């Protein structure tokens, strides 16, 4: 079944953002030269901390209000009754609308910040290394093209974006790289993708994140990030040249 081409909103918008960013950087007097590789994993952690701060503030405000009122409005005597206010229509509407608008403002702020990061996550940088990933019960296969196919382990060059084109042969799986703060499902009959960039040499764990049967927790994959020149040599050798021991696992 052929898939309809859909408007590539995210790449278009991401492309505009990608053009705007170096333009802004140059305009603000930043270092000229090649645009930096985005850091979606670092950006994720940064935004997560902001969101957690946001929800913690809201939670603490409401929590303290509850504690205060429970203490302050304890019954003075057994016959005492509450004297909660009867609201006029104007008060009733205002007391609904004002909080509603405040919540909405926070929602849109979070949506906007999240959208910027989402653009980064879904826009594959131009020079990304393409690797096809095929998920099966219960192993992963990585196809670099040129006849290089590995199983349950992959090598990637440090500092260069890697885009994984995912599909599945049997049931739904999900390729999850916790250290890169990213996952995407591998779905039979669909082509999905994710991209990441390893910033240091080392071993990064990937794992299956979509329930796929009895072996679901038993299909990890090791992503070995090696310096770009050694990676190129590995590719040139048809994937056969063994690489020297690497740094400690990045986890």
């Amino acid at each position, binding site marked *: *079944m052929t898939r309809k081409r859909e*408007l590539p909103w995210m790449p278009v918008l991401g492309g505009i953002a990608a053009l705007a960013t170096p333009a802004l950087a140059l305009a603000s007097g930043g270092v000229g030269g090649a645009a930096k590789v985005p850091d979606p994993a670092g950006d*994720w952690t940064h935004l*997560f901390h902001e*969101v*957690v701060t946001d*929800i913690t503030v*809201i*939670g603490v405000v409401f*929590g303290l209000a*509850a504690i205060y*009122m429970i203490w302050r*409005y*304890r*019954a003075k005597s057994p016959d005492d*009754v*509450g*004297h*909660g*206010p009867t*609201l006029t229509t104007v008060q*009733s*509407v205002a*007391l*609904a609308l004002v909080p*509603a608008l405040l919540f*909405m403002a926070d*929602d*849109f702020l*979070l*949506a906007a910040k*999240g*959208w910027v*990061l989402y653009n980064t*996550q879904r826009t594959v940088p131009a020079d990304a290394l393409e690797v096809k990933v095929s998920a099966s019960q219960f192993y992963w296969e990585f196809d670099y093209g040129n006849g290089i196919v590995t199983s349950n382990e992959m090598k990637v060059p440090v500092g260069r974006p890697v885009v994984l084109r*995912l599909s599945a042969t*049997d*049931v*739904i799986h*999900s390729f*999850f790289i*916790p250290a890169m703060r990213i*996952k*995407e*499902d591998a*779905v*039979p009959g*669909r*082509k999905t993708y*994710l991209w990441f960039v390893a910033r240091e040499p080392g071993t990064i*764990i990937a*794992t299956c*994140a979509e*329930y796929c*049967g*009895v072996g*679901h*927790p*038993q299909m*990890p994959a090791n992503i070995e990030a090696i310096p770009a020149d050694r990676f190129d040599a590995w590719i040139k050798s048809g994937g056969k040249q063994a690489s020297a021991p690497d740094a400690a696992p990045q986890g």
Partner: protein
Amino acid sequence: MTTLKEWILTTDHKRVGILYLIGSFAGFALAGIAALLIRLQQYDPGMDIITGNAYNNVLYFHGAAMILVFLIPGLTGFFGNYFLPIMIGARDVAFPRLNAFSVWLFYGGIVVALVSMALPDAPDVLWTGYPPYSITTASNTAFYVFTVHLIGFSSIVGSINLIVTVICMRAPNIGWNQLNMLVWTLLGSLTINLIFIPVLGAAVTMLVLDKYAGTNFFNVAAGGDVLLYQNLFWFYSHPAVYVIFLPAMGILYEVVAAMGKNRIFNYKAAVYFGIVGVGVMSGDVWVHHLYTSGIPDWIRVIMMVTTLLISVPVGVMVISLWGTLYKASITFNVAMYYAIACLFLVLIGGLTGIPLAMVSMTLHLAKTSYVHAHFHFVMALFATFSMFSGVYFWFPKMSGRMADTVVAYLGFWVSSIGVNLTFWPLFVIGVEGMPRRYWDYSQFPDWFAGYHHIATAGAFLTALGMALTLGNLAYCTFWGKKSVANPWGSKSLEWTHTPNPPGPGNFVDDPKVAPGWTPYEYVR
């Protein structure tokens, strides 16, 4: 004393409600034991308590039973059936025999679920049942489907019954703006049930047709689409969380208003903006369960906005609940302790959902213990504690006895500490990548195990708290201290106009309330 035959053949809404309560709590206990097995297995990586297929069976049963047997029938079937008719001044529901039919459908679903676990090849498709796995697996997916059919049909029938009851059978002078918050939240919940359960029914029926009848809805090789199921399933299953959330809030409004002797704060906003808003918006957020599924990016972004915005009507409901404490005159009982705990549980559960509304956050957090902890805080903790609050609050009404014993308070505290110990650690390892549905996590750093240790200890502490609580409730049902007529001084109709327990037909005389009456008339 009543006979077993009278209970089996009953069409009295209160007895039907009690039957729902028994089935619901039996499911809770069994699913709770399943949870303990899961937590034992996850204590350390490489444990050998229950692994592989057996683990997946237990995990399936835990999820399906907690949602489909405990939470939804407990909140709508028990609280809805027992209290809604009395609160509106009705003598029973609109269709009493249909009511009996709905509870026996529910029991039929429980029987199918239990039988499915006893036979070989128990379902291992989890409560979500995604294809292709649920079709290619050798296990008995059909049992899962038939469980859903029976319990879903029970819910649809029960929803029709209770909605018609509210529309047609309110006593004179009880208008729409005079309904109990429990009644309004149930109306929202039941309407959601009515609209969305058929979609779940369709989704699981398509599974069983694909597996056994040669259709190809989800068979990619023959032109089917795997994501179709996820969309249909979550189109129901997201609104289903509001089926649970709304009556849980409804119970809290009742308990807080009665124990605070206060009117509901901004009642109309809570009802027409909050409950109606949640109900309407419940149906436009489901794709946040599909953020990593490969569905097109633009759909994910739209539903990020809608999912974030549903916090608005929820926020209005929360403010009304908080506001009901304002200038109240609060006395405390076990029900109020549970209600106060719920105030914090709803904050934690609801606010930890905010990152999950954001696509960019969820590309990492999806399918990790973070999600698991979030929905347990809202469903397992908030909604469950709310149910206990309601059971304790209306215990004297239903039994004529008091259940507010030292054991009750002890059970509350032990459970409260236990549930927090169980689920806070899971947020932490979830952010670091601990996936869901894993019976072994050896590939992850060693320090994950420490957090699992705490969570497992918490689960057993919770089990102790629940045992104390359920034991106390069972004991006091038969041997508790006799209660006075209206121990909490509530102004709601079930307390002011019926004995403990209400007899057949509920009211001695047809209930008459003055014009302008509300269930919260503490100050005139």
